């Protein structure tokens, strides 16, 4: 009965009250020729036990592999408390806190989230979440066009070291509004944005520069120099950052002399399971001066009619339900529940725990690179330091090697052939605090076999 609690007596009484004979009569306004004849294509109902069995079987079929994949989604330990709290009905089954007095839980939590994200990024204000890191990056580009009043070009410089999917999402999202994304090349020897690539933009009207730190290869960009270069030319800086890394790396708010103008990123590492890619959440921060250009919901602290502290949605005049066609974005539903998880996660980790997590991830990745480059035919693609992720170069095609690893239960990383053909047989690998030395050793030894099973190029 589709979670419908009506008894036959209820239905009879309700129809009588309405004054119709049958439920069917309530649909009299719908032209009969439009009525659905059949819903073939939707199978018969399963009860909870049956769907449970089906889902368990499908989950078991997918299994759990030993994974060294990163590339924008990271396996971290998620404390049990995070989802025990997050799935509480009062968070899980509430909606956007339009009725502030009956939603102080969600509202205060968003305020705390905004505070933590601002603290982490070193920025002044944060919103209550975007869809994911990629869409937040796209929205940041749109926001920069609004915020940078001096620029009229809507040209956005995007390094090729930005996650390729983020670049694609930015184009899909913003090109209809006339934004132009121009790609900045990187050095194939060092994997970071080439400083001389900037030279050709001297004197031109550019709206914003995007910088990802660490970049897609796990390499560290020269964020201070890039930021100062942009600011000196009236170009806004959009930082794309991994939140875990910020426990150790300079936050965007401190890049260069003035700090980035907008900082966004993928929130998934903060307590959100990998889940085949979602739901995750994007975070977005900026300077106070740009807050009215920011999309998304924002919570403010205020007082009630008796002077008691309370929280409420604020600056709603930016949003679609008030400003409609002139809103900063069309976003309405965001990723609230994931933001909830992140807020609990950050509370449990705190500055020290997050630092340890970042440090462990970095140390594990170094250990991984050291181990794997001991395998014949494998070397590090870039000499310089990486953070948390690294590119390896193989002497033979990556795809068959990954397949050979997969049949042995190891997901060995991401084949970069489709994304960066210029890098040759390149493989992006990642290890976080969840990997032990034994795991790494297992990868090394299985890789040794796998390499042998694939002919060198």
């Amino acid at each position, binding site marked *: 009965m589709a979670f419908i*609690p009506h008894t036959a007596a209820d239905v009879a009484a309700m129809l009588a*009250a309405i004054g119709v004979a049958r439920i069917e009569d309530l649909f009299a306004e719908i032209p009969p020729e439009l009525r659905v004849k059949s819903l073939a294509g939707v199978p018969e109902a399963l009860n909870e036990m049956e769907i449970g069995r089906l889902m368990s079987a499908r989950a078991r079929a997918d299994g759990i592999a030993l994974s060294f994949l990163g590339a924008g989604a990271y396996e971290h330990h998620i404390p049990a408390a995070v989802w025990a709290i997050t799935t509480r009905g009062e968070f899980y089954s509430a909606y956007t806190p339009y009725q502030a007095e009956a939603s102080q839980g969600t509202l205060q939590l968003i305020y705390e989230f905004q505070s933590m994200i601002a603290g982490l990024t070193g920025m002044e204000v944060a919103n209550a979440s975007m869809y*994911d890191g990629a869409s937040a990056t796209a929205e940041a580009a749109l926001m920069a066009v609004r915020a940078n009043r001096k620029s009229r070009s809507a040209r956005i410089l995007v390094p090729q070291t930005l996650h390729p999917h983020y670049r694609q999402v930015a184009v899909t999202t913003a090109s*209809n509004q006339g934004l132009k994304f121009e790609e900045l090349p990187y050095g194939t020897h060092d994997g970071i944005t080439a400083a001389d690539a900037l030279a050709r933009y001297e004197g031109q009207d550019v709206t914003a520069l995007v910088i990802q730190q660490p970049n897609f290869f796990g390499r560290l960009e020269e964020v201070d120099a890039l930021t100062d270069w942009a600011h000196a030319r009236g170009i806004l800086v959009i930082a794309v950052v991994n939140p875990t890394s910020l426990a150790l790396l300079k936050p965007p708010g401190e890049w260069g002399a003035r700090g980035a103008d907008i900082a966004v990123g993928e929130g998934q590492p903060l307590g959100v399971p990998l*889940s085949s890619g979602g739901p995750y959440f994007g975070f977005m921060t900026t300077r106070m001066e740009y807050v009215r250009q920011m999309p998304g919901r924002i919570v403010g602290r205020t007082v*009630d*009619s008796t002077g008691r502290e309370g929280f409420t949605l604020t600056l709603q005049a930016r949003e679609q339900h008030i400003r409609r066609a002139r809103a900063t974005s069309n976003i309405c539903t965001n990723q609230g529940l994931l933001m909830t998880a992140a807020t609990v996660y950050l509370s449990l980790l*705190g500055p020290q*725990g997050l630092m340890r997590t970042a440090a462990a991830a970095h140390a594990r990745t170094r250990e991984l690179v050291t181990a794997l480059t001991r395998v014949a035919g494998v070397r590090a693609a870039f000499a310089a330091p990486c953070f948390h992720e690294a590119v390896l170069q193989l002497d033979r095609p990556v795809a068959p090697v990954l397949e050979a690893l997969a049949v042995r239960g190891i997901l060995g990383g991401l084949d970069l052939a489709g994304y960066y053909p210029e890098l040759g047989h390149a493989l992006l690998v990642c290890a976080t605090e969840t990997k032990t030395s034994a795991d790494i050793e297992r990868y090394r030894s299985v890789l040794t076999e796998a390499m042998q099973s694939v002919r060198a190029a």
Partner: protein
Amino acid sequence: MTAREKVIFEYSRAGRGALDQWPAPVAAAALGDLPAGLRRQRPPLLPEVGELEAVRHFTRLSQLNFSIDTHFYPLGSCTMKYNPKACNQYAMLPEFLARHPLAPESQGQGVLACLYELQEMLQAVSGMEGVALSPMAGAHGEFAGVAMIRAYHRARGDLKRNEIIVPEAAHGTNPATATMCGCVVREIPVTGSGDIDLEALKAVVGPQTAGIMLTNPSTLGVFERSIAAVARIVHEAGGLLYYDGANLNAILGMVRPGDMGFDVIHMNLHKTFSTPHGGGGPGAGAVGVGARLLPFLPVPVVGKAGERYRWLTEADLPQSIGRLSAFMGNTGVLLRAYIYMRMLGREGMRQVGEYATLNANYLLKCLQDAGFDAAYPQRRASHEFIVTLKRQARELNVTAMDFAKRLLDYGFHAPTTYFPLLVPECLLIEPTETETKDTLDAFVAAMVRIQGEAEHEPSRVTSAPHTMPVRRLDDVRAARQLDLTWKPTAQP
């Protein structure tokens, strides 16, 4: 008596922490390769609390919320129906949670099978030819839809079509989406009985028309009776029809947007298909398209070859509008919708439509009988309906907002207020099919009591709520004296 719940930073003490959650420290040397100039100098301002402090704090915070699990929540246009616990439990099986988005298809046939079948079911209930699941909310689906409309015209070399027609009652995301897609919005009025003004529509269509965005049943809570005419007018003018399917609940299993002539639709799985609203999200705004727009679907989509499922990408869909999210959208949300739809089955789909409509019409009738004014008294309610309190506002100086706040005291979440904007002092009420007659009756009783208070003791209503954790909040101050992040010395 009980103190307010502090902001978590106020519990923080230097050096405190949930140590059991942390990995072991690594030797400083392991970080030695990181250039000093790129390192953080001072630790971030994050709370330092133990696990108990965090759990206690957030548990207490949660209790300050109304939610479906605790209260009737008839928020119009939001479909706050029950979120079955099974959907959460089975979507959170460890294997589903652990799967990396870039894991090979061979290690994901289970989840891909679910997504593929979800596409098929959504296609069946919407009457469309193809479905893509990656939009992460309704507005995101709208974006995908309008972007496909633009891509369609562009692919035909029809480059001047940049106007999107929107009825004045439309949800704010519709005009906002049109703008996001670089279109110009043309608003058209609705008639006094809630249908689109066809003459106004005829006047506005033309060679610049990219399409029209419609909700049916409209946000006025009524079925657009002239839909066939609308479709004809727009199609004849060369435009496409976009169906805002945020709220399919009332027509589920009854009418299919595809059959009404729509070219593209988004469906809010977090409404009709009961994935949780989560205090603001996540949602999922799957898009369905007719034949003309099939080539433009966003990637990735799940395809099937023989018995194997695989991702279709730009290689398969070269005209795709592209990628909308870093990976595959909100997979975990999609799994919840899938589980829900399988539990409903074919028959359940229709029942949802029937009982959502029954509940709305019953509640409307009871409120009318109790003396409240329907905005469209001559119309049937769909999944929702509008009550206007303009009489009360005029005669008693008690507004829709006052009623809304007072309802909280009676243990009911307020309906949507002041939307759609064209009905004065409106309450948009959507009971959903998962509520009992008893609950609806209790809601009516509360409304009647509030009406009595408004007549005899209006200050009880205008100063409501009285029993919430806070009284009415100062929104003006919130916007003027922005306090958006906690600071060590900040005091409200």
